[in-house]
């Protein structure tokens, strides 16, 4: 029973990591850029929803506030691309990495200035409490996280494989110049993907806030999500989810069965092992480049 309990709570946590990782992977898949601020996006989405929902701030009903949050974050993502990242067009990947890290600092500062650094809880209808299924205690929020994550991953996967826009996004990342020649508006497509990833971050944030208290440093969770994305393989949506689940499940088991102090290093040790032995992730999509 204990194992099942650990597994379920690990899966729920893992889904949040997976959702953030999904945001990384979306942007990476479509633009080859890596958004190190994705964790902070998630935190910002959580706080926007909290600001709209909680009686202390605006006090909208949750089911109006949640879609509104997603829309706001999507617009924010698009604007970010429009005003900042588009100007980096053609610069190295490292420039984007450094820029997004800096952006994360700025977002954390702004969120702290608006919503203070005290941990706060979202008044979410998902946080209705726990119920007991055959000795395993399940939270409503945990179940919601798992269901939403699986659905979202499925739809995004189909979106990339089946729709015209999804294919355009893949083409734009594989060869920008050729994509231009094929009549794909590469810059606008990139803006859209940033918007989409903002929306995914908002979903992750809302779900994460439903599970417990948040504060502006919650964005640092992004580093764990990062490990998840790498373990799964950058550029693979199901891989990101799997990576998130692996990291999420390892954590509770490591803290239960490993001596104290070793448990928090478990995900990163796994990350280093994956990087050493399968540098492109468990779900690799890279081939050696031939000259």
């Amino acid at each position, binding site marked *: 029973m204990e194992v099942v309990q650990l597994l379920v709570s690990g899966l729920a946590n893992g889904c949040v990591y997976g959702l953030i990782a999904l945001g990384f992977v979306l942007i990476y898949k479509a633009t080859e850029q890596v958004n190190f601020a994705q964790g902070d996006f998630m935190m910002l989405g959580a706080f926007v929803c909290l600001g709209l929902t909680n009686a202390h701030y605006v006090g909208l009903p949750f089911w109006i506030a949640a879609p509104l949050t997603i829309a706001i974050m999507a617009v924010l993502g698009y604007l970010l691309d429009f005003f900042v990242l588009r100007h980096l067009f053609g610069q190295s990947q*490292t*420039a984007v990495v450094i*820029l997004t890290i800096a952006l994360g600092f700025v977002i954390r500062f702004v969120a702290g200035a608006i919503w203070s650094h005290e941990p706060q809880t979202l008044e979410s209808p998902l946080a209705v409490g726990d119920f007991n299924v055959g000795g395993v205690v399940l939270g409503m929020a945990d179940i919601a996280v798992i269901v939403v994550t699986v659905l979202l991953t499925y739809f995004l996967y189909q979106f990339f494989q089946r729709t015209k826009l999804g294919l355009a996004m893949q083409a734009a990342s594989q060869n920008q110049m050729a994509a231009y020649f094929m009549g794909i508006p590469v810059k606008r497509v990139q803006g859209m993907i940033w918007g989409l990833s903002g929306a995914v971050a908002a979903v992750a944030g809302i779900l994460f806030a439903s599970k417990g208290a948040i504060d502006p440093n919650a964005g640092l969770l992004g580093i764990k999500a*990062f490990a998840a994305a790498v373990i799964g393989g950058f550029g693979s949506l199901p891989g990101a989810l799997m990576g998130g689940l692996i990291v999420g499940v390892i954590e509770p088991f490591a803290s239960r069965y490993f001596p104290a102090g070793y448990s928090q290093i478990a995900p990163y040790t796994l990350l280093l092992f994956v990087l050493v032995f399968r540098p492109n992730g468990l779900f690799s999509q*890279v081939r050696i480049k031939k000259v």
Partner: protein
Amino acid sequence: MRIHFKTSYNHDIRLFPDWWSFLVYATLIVIAVVLPWVLDDFFLGEVTNVLIWAIAGLGLMLLTGQTGQASLGHAAFLALGCYSCIIFMEQGWPFLIAFPAAGILTGVVGTIIAIPAIRLHGIYLAIATIALSILADDIIVLMEPITDGVSGKFAPMITIFGIEIERWTTPDRFYWLVLAVTILCTLGYRNLLRSPLGRAFAAVRDSEVSASAMGVHIARAKAVAFGISCAITGLAGALMGFYAGAFNNETFSIVISITLLMMIVIGGLGSIHGAFFGAVVVAFLPQFLSMTKDFVGGGSVAIPGLETGVFGMILILFILFEPMGIYGRWMKIRIWFELFPFARKDMFKRQKSYLKTERLR
């Protein structure tokens, strides 16, 4: 305008292009040496801090600016250098042996870590080094018998040939020590750039494919770059330990790694000047912010995250408007004056590059 009339190939790699620039740097060193008689102890401490950050910046600059490998884990090597130097000294080794030994140890460990890491490209290397930086914190706690874990260590007194050096009681001597290390590191860096190895680094940065076509052993070049970079960073870490006086597992956090990387980008990637300019920004920004706050009348209320927030904002503006950093701006202004009135706006325009992925799907 100065014209360099080159009569031999050695002119291209001379340490100083002409007498004028030699004089400039010589003057700079003389000013730096007499500084303790001019400044009071507080500002001397700040200048020492700038120099220490500059050494760390030189270390990372060699890897990121010169070889093109971004590392977000250099705080781990700062920590390794710091801990190993202090531990060697606690074993009774004199400073003059413990300090280089710490640098060499850090370099060797860095090279060993680099061997798997260099197979990774750009982003993956950044992530692996992030993981390293996070692990370093936990490893220091786990190795408590040697490192004293969370309670931390205190830096002992440095003694060189009977002269006692300590940060608080003799800030001027400590400053000269740091200055000497800085000059040695800078000269070493400058000489490295003139050597075939330094040119190999630059070739790897600009294009791995062309570099290997020119006969550069890419993996070896990267591993050596990693090693030298870590060694310099380790030296800076040891000095940082002496500067702080006391340190524990949280002194060298991932934020330090990130600050270091941001610092060299603000200063200007790929130049020695950049490391120093960036160090000035990093070291003086907190002072500047607190002065501004006093001026505005914010009182003594601490705003959490303000420093990093402002730092991030500065960095974003630099990447957007001056990707070559402070040094790039300085170069442009200088060249504008040197070529007056022939400088053109597009002289520094970069060629647009288009992205191609290595993924199949």
